């Protein structure tokens, strides 16, 4: 029996025994006089892993008094339990702590024991077994771990594998199946799993599936599949392609029954084994290329875990770089799954039963300082927090102590109060962090703090560059103050206040909009809590000059002949000492002619040539906001739509008669010269949700990447990009920080699609989440729901090209005809089932067309009442008959049935071709109450063979459906197991057999809600 400590605690006397000297506390003294006696088996020093530890009862005896002790058990991972029976499934040191009170005094006793650090672990002792030995059955001749695995047991290796440098050459585990009986499979599936040592939710597993087309098939081939967490199990079968979750996959040669279905010539017999086979003739072995994230077995590629060729969701790899190997089995036929492990990198030597970890845990102190700031005597000093992690033990506790004169032979412990200590004398104090893993490896980390030195008062100087006077509406520079003195780093809070209004200033600039003397205040605080304040005045001056504060966004390209709205922006005027907003003027100059508008007016750009620019000048009085040259494309002439003109850009030629066979497949873009970036912006903004373009290869690729940029049509700062890189065999997709590599299925195949859905890009079915804009800001979706689309070829050589087939479903060809209809996005969920008399909020919707700049969208809501469609009004009385769909409507659902929501999207002022589009959704108000069935009393429940039993009288009623709307059927399940229906007015059965006859009524209402009721009649002779 090993006792770790023996302490007692006398709660009522604690303060008296603790000797406190100016905050430095001496160790608690020991007490003798009590005895602890067990009524069971004494606790041993060691227990086996996987065994069950039954906590023995202990009795405390003190001075002739005794008390039964309570207990808890602390496990190596830091968890504790008060269970009487503890499964020892963790290696390391366990502590058993007993507590008992006698005469108001609490006593404590602790015993510790170790659970061996085994090289591998499993739980079902006695059924599962693992022994190193020699295997020679059926002609084998191998040494290794002979494993007999039972049920759900898992063989887990203790030593972690450094996965970071693993390549296809490193065999992680090798072995072969060792059947008990030749010709009989003990199990059908062996699974090898690698699990991240830090985050166990990250793993990949490899399944070895016995090939068993015929149940007794012994084929010496095995199908191998692999998949990471969250992924399907996938295996690539050479010559046949991918298999997903079907138990097939990459072919490996190994036998499960010491027999093979291959004959001497290698031909396969499908109906059963043709001959014996030496079990260890072929070993399975797993290898893993960590960089490529490819899994191999027997040197054959099983799958590529981060390839869209294999999975719809890609595996991102191990976080920690260290993984744990485990092996399990399933589809048991015999009592145990039997196999031999001949090698694994999780064991240096297969004969070593025990494993020892000599590595210490790693302590991380959460501080920005390499050397902690000076402490002040008598002032609480914050101790930086710390964490510790050990690969074998996980997160381990960190103990913190503070010592004075740590390096001396007589260091003095210093009181720690929460996360602070208070120095009481000058000198050096040492903060000591200690952490211990389950193997007993202890790590110590220290940080030194000096106290009692000179700490100068905090002194704040306002820089000369600080603006003291400024015209209202302009940004005043409020520089960060110059600071000296104090201890450690500072925090600074800066505010501006006038007449009791306080504004916090960030980023050193402040825009005063009220005349007067603003107070600028800097409050500075150092590490140990010393603070100081500096104040100065900033005078805000009224003036007559306009100030331009509003942002102006013009389209990248205008479409000639189309009505646009000049953005409504204002100039700020501060002549009264407060803000006044004044609408700006706009001059639009085209072909030498200038027209003047108010901001917010409609105008129609017109040019004589395609791509000609017009000048747009915003101003107020004599002050100019800015003037901008905006290109204008000629997009339409009557019903002719000049498709090519929409692709605004330079450096490429459009080939507009691209055929594939006899089919016109789109237009192609060919780079005129080599260029780092060549491409176009589509002149008409598109709906962002559901946007997609279909591309095809055209000639030689000759570019390194395609870059697609989506920019909010009204908020141009909101723009996201995805780059699809082309390598020799891979495509890279990059969006924000997201980067994946794809096998090059898209590069050399016919068609691929770039799209956008749910705030993410899509490359075919691969979802590429983009969390940030191209400026690195968080991306939370497009504000206007419409985007300008730019597509560039990067590092393109002369002649680089691709085809464009369609934009969001509208084919793009040289026919100069707009055949596409508008698309629709509802800005919220739509449809669904609701209870009667509930309220439904119809979300706003937006529509857009590929070519037409303006699209109208209306909505009509109807419901069938007594067989007639009736237009629904919202709760405000608005009749929802062709009303604008750009706002919410609230509807009271007071009719059963389906409310039809019909959206009508039209191209406005566009071609005469009817491209109108109707979208229909429904809101269902469904009765979910089934009819009630009751039997009238008085029916018999017994009868004799030969009796005629009449169907019992019953009634059916429903909450909604009338009698004629309820379907009623009647049945009898005879005692001999036949369900007979009473049809029409059939009403009785002459029973011919003993047993129970079950009569049933089934009824369902006009919505189909169904109910059933039974009556049982026992028939005897």
């Amino acid at each position, binding site marked *: 029996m090993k006792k770790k400590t023996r302490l007692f605690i006398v709660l009522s006397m604690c303060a008296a025994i603790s000797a406190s000297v100016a905050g430095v506390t001496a160790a608690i003294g020991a007490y003798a006089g009590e005895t602890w006696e067990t009524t069971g088996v004494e606790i041993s020093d060691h227990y086996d892993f996987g065994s069950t530890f039954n906590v023995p009862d202990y009795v405390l005896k003190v001075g002739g008094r005794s008390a039964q002790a309570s207990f808890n058990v602390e496990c190596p991972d830091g968890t504790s339990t008060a269970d009487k029976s503890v499964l020892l499934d963790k290696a390391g040191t366990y502590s058993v702590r007993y507590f008992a009170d006698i005469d108001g005094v609490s006593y404590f006793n602790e015993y510790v024991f170790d659970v061996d650090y085994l090289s591998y672990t499993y739980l079902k002792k006695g*059924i599962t077994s693992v022994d190193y030995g020699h295997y020679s059955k059926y002609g084998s001749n191998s040494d290794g771990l002979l494993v007999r695995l*039972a049920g759900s047991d898992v063989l887990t290796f203790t030593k972690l594998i450094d996965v970071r440098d693993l390549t296809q050459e490193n065999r992680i585990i090798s072995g072969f199946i060792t059947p008990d*009986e030749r*010709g009989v499979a003990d199990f*059908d599936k062996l699974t090898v799993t690698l699990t991240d040592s830090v985050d166990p939710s990250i793993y990949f597993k490899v399944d070895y599936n016995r090939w068993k087309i015929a149940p007794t098939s012994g084929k010496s081939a095995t199908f191998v599949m692999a998949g990471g967490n969250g992924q399907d199990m996938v295996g690539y079968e050479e010559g046949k392609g991918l298999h997903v979750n079907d138990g097939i996959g990459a072919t490996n040669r190994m036998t499960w029954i010491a027999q093979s279905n291959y004959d001497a010539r290698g031909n396969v*017999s499908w*109906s*059963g*084994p043709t001959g014996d086979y030496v079990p260890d003739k072929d070993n399975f072995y797993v290898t893993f290329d960590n960089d490529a994230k490819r899994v191999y077995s027997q040197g054959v590629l099983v799958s590529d875990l981060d390839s869209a060729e294999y999975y719809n969701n890609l595996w991102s790899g191990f976080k920690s770089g260290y993984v744990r190997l485990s092996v399990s089995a399933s*589809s048991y*036929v*015999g*009592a145990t799954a039997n196999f031999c492990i001949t090698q694994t990198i999780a064991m240096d030597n297969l004969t070593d039963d025990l494993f020892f970890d000599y590595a210490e845990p790693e302590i991380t102190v959460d501080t920005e300082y390499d050397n902690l700031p000076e402490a002040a005597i008598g002032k609480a000093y914050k101790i930086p927090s710390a964490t510790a992690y050990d690969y074998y033990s996980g997160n381990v506790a960190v103990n913190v102590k503070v010592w004075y004169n740590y390096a001396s032979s007589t260091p003095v412990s210093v009181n720690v109060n929460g996360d602070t200590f208070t120095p009481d004398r000058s000198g050096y104090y040492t903060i000591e962090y200690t952490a211990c893993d389950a193997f007993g490896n202890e790590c110590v980390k220290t940080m030194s703090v000096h106290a009692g030195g000179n700490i100068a008062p905090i002194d704040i100087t306002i820089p000369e560059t600080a603006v003291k006077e400024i015209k209202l509406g302009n940004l005043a520079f409020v520089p960060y103050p110059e600071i000296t003195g104090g201890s450690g780093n500072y925090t600074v809070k800066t505010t501006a206040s006038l007449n009791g209004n306080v504004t916090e200033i960030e980023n050193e600039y402040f825009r005063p909009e009220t005349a007067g003397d603003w107070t600028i205040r800097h409050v500075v605080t150092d590490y140990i809590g010393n603070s100081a304040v500096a104040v100065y005045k900033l005078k805000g001056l009224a003036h007559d000059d306009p100030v331009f504060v509003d942002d102006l966004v013009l389209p990248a390209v205008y479409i000639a002949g189309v009505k646009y709205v000049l953005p409504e922006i204002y100039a700020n005027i501060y002549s009264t000492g407060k803000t006044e907003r004044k609408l700006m003027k706009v001059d639009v100059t085209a072909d030498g002619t200038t027209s003047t508008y108010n901001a917010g007016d409609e105008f129609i750009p017109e040019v004589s040539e395609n791509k000609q620019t017009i000048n747009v000048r915003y101003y107020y009085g004599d002050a100019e906001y800015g003037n901008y040259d905006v290109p204008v494309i000629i997009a339409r002439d009557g019903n002719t739509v000049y498709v090519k003109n929409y692709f605004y850009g330079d450096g490429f030629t459009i080939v507009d008669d691209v055929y594939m066979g006899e089919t016109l497949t789109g237009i192609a873009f060919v780079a005129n010269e080599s260029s780092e970036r060549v491409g176009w912006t589509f002149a008409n903004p598109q709906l962002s949700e559901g946007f997609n373009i279909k591309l095809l290869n055209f000639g030689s690729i000759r570019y390194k990447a395609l870059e697609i940029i989506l920019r909010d049509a009204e908020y141009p700062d909101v723009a996201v990009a995805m780059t699809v890189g082309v390598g020799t065999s891979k495509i890279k997709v990059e969006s924000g920080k997201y980067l994946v590599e794809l096998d090059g299925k898209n590069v050399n195949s016919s068609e691929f699609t770039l799209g956008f859905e749910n705030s993410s890009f899509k490359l075919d*079915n691969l979802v590429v989440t983009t969390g940030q804009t191209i400026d690195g800001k968080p991306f939370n979706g497009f504000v206007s729901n419409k985007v300008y689309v730019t597509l560039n070829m990067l590092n393109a050589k002369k002649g680089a090209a691709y085809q464009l087939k369609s934009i969001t479903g509208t084919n793009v060809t040289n026919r100069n005809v707009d055949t596409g209809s508008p698309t629709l996005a509802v800005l919220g*969920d739509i*449809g*669904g*089932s609701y209870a009667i008399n509930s309220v439904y909020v119809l979300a706003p919707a937006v529509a857009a067309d590929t070519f037409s700049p303006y699209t109208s969208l209306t909505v009509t809501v109807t419901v069938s009442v007594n067989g007639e469609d009736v237009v629904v009004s919202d709760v405000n009385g608005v009749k929802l008959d062709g009303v604008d769909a750009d706002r919410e409507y609230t509807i009271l659902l007071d009719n059963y049935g*389906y409310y039809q929501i019909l959206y009508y999207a039209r191209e406005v002022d566009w071609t005469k071709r009817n491209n109108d589009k109707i979208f229909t*959704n*429904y809101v*269902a108000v*469904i009765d*979910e109450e089934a009819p009630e069935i*009751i*039997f*009238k*009393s*008085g*029916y*018999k*429940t017994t009868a004799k063979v030969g009796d005629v039993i009449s169907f019992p009288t019953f009634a*059916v*009623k429903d909450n909604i459906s009338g009698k004629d709307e309820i379907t009623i*059927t009647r049945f009898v399940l005879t*005692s*001999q*197991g036949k*369900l*007979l229906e*009473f049809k*029409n*007015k*059939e*009403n*009785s059965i*002459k029973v*011919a057999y003993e*047993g*129970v006859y*079950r009569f*049933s009524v*089934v009824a369902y209402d006009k*919505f*189909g809600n169904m109910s*059933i009721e*039974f*009556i*049982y*009649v026992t028939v005897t002779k």
Partner: protein
Amino acid sequence: MKVKKIISTLLALSLGATVFASCGKSGGDGSDSSKEQTPSQNYDWMKYDDASVISDFDPHFAEGTLHDVNIDYDDPAGAFIVDKKTDYKIVVGDGTATQASSFINKMIIQATGISLVKIDEIEATVTADSTYVLLGCDDIFNEKGFEKPSYDKIGIAGYTIKTYGKNVFIEAYTQNGYQMAALAFLRAVLGYDMFAGDLIIFERDGKILPKMDIVERPDYDYRQQVNNVDGETAYGLGFTTTTMFINTGSGWVHNVCDYTLKSDRDEHPGWYSDDPAKAQSCFTAHGNKEEYALMVNRFAERLIYFINNNSKDINNILISQMDVALGNTVSRCHCDTCEASYAFYNSIAGAMLMLINDVAKIVGDYLDSEQAIEDGFEPDHELNIIMLVYGDAINAPSKIENGNYVFDENGKGVPEVERRFWLDENGEVYYEDGKTESGEDKLLVCGERVGLMYAAAAASYIYSFYDPVNLVYKNRVDAWSGLGGSFYFWLYEISYYQYLYPYNSFDSYAENMRYFKDHGGKYMYSEGTWENPNNPGFAKLRDYLASKLEFDVNNDYNTLVDRYFNYYFDDAKDYMRQFFEEVVANLRHYESEIGGGVHNYNVSKKEYWEEGKLRSWLALCDKAYAAIEHYKVDDPEKYEALKKHILCETLFPRYVLCNDYADSFSNDTIVEMRREFMNDFYALQNTSHQEHFTIDAVFSSWNLI
């Protein structure tokens, strides 16, 4: 993860006493029922005054089956496993019993946590007080005065179990026999029953080893599982897991061209049908006697080759026409002699059966020869040479009058004379009738070792073959059954165009098993989906019914269904049973409109599956989930198994809602519903919504993939 559940309670005691007791609605004592309602003026009582009486259902129990089971728990042979200890050891004297012994041990481990030590036969000293479970220890068995029933009596899958003192002897002839014996032993000792791969129950605690005297033969020697189940589950359910048919190269069926050589096509064109592709064999050799004799010899030579180059444990080999389904429309030879034979027998089956009889005669001579012994065959080796009754050979070549089969007093077909058609030197057709040694007409019947395999894909399996709906198919079977020979049957138990919809063949199943047993059934394959391992529509119930009814066709349907729901759904049984009963009632009511064909789309018509029904059933499933919720804590493994059982059955209503009622759900909801359906469908390892078609096309139409 598969879950093997061990339920070692004595639930059967309560189950046996109740019929639908789970609904709590059983009848009373003969007077007014306990379910009586309080009469109310609010109710419009419905009474059907037409006193027309429907007929009760008459079952057709099979006679002559062998289930001689005597088990005595009151005077046990010994104490088997008490307090996780046992004195019993397991002894395997016959290699064919190895898998059975492993299975027994595995189940004992599951039920009790311990295993029996296995020893060699030579180490076993059997006395009345010794404690052995002996499998295949024939010599000791005989020493103790027992005699194994003959192979003729118990066949390939039969067995006997006898206790001797405290010992148990388990004897059979084959691996199949030991499999079934293992299940019988486990039933007797542990109350073993398997409902599915993840649900095994033990109704007894294993303390008692009862006295046993059992001789049984499964009613079908070969029992194929209905749906896609893995080998282990098939074994535990009692389906035949060994290879049943010899592969002749191109497969085991539609293989007649394997019986000739490639060179024969040029050297003996008369052996092949008269189409340019020579797609089928000509069973009359175009009327050339010499060529016919050579062809018979070639067939026999090839057949002998096949049985020598396959495992000798495989006892069945087919001679069957090439398939006409896969682009080949040549159903048979149309030469003059074939036409004459077809006209006479109203089928090409006459010519085909005569050829197979001739081949079987030669093969039989071989098997009876010393050469066969040298080649490794046992003297009494069983070999069944099976003719596929299919296509132009589906009509029985039995006697016909006025266009109808002639049946004897037992309802079996009356054999026709054996008539062979030849061409004379002028190319004219003539015939020769076979004669017996006594000069009487020789009748065309199945020769020794010749059997038949019948597959009626056009029949309606929502009715039994006793039902007039299936009369045309029944007549064929009846006619064939008059020609002797063992019968192999291939039935159908699902709508192959609509896997995910229920197919109401449940209560007809038992009767079909009895019908086909009564007509010489030896092999039974009631095909469900061979693609989906977890198909909805209560397909798992059909696996269980098959496992019980193929073993004993006289099992009681109602009892089996009760038992299934009580165990398979446990605390959720009430809700899932109501779901089942409503689905079945719905299908029964519309069966004349939907029809029972296994190749039509009717069952998926929206008009039969109103939204309310589907929602009602899913609401029942939600209640079912709630009813098992407590197992999450009490028994997590059991919870996972039960949850999977319920989840599987939700697939049908969810699929229909996703397909036909998308308008009832919001855009986001329907996308989520479809995605969840897809995930669950795949998680249950299913692949297909229609035979030969993966469901990917549906998921693609839902914009999921």
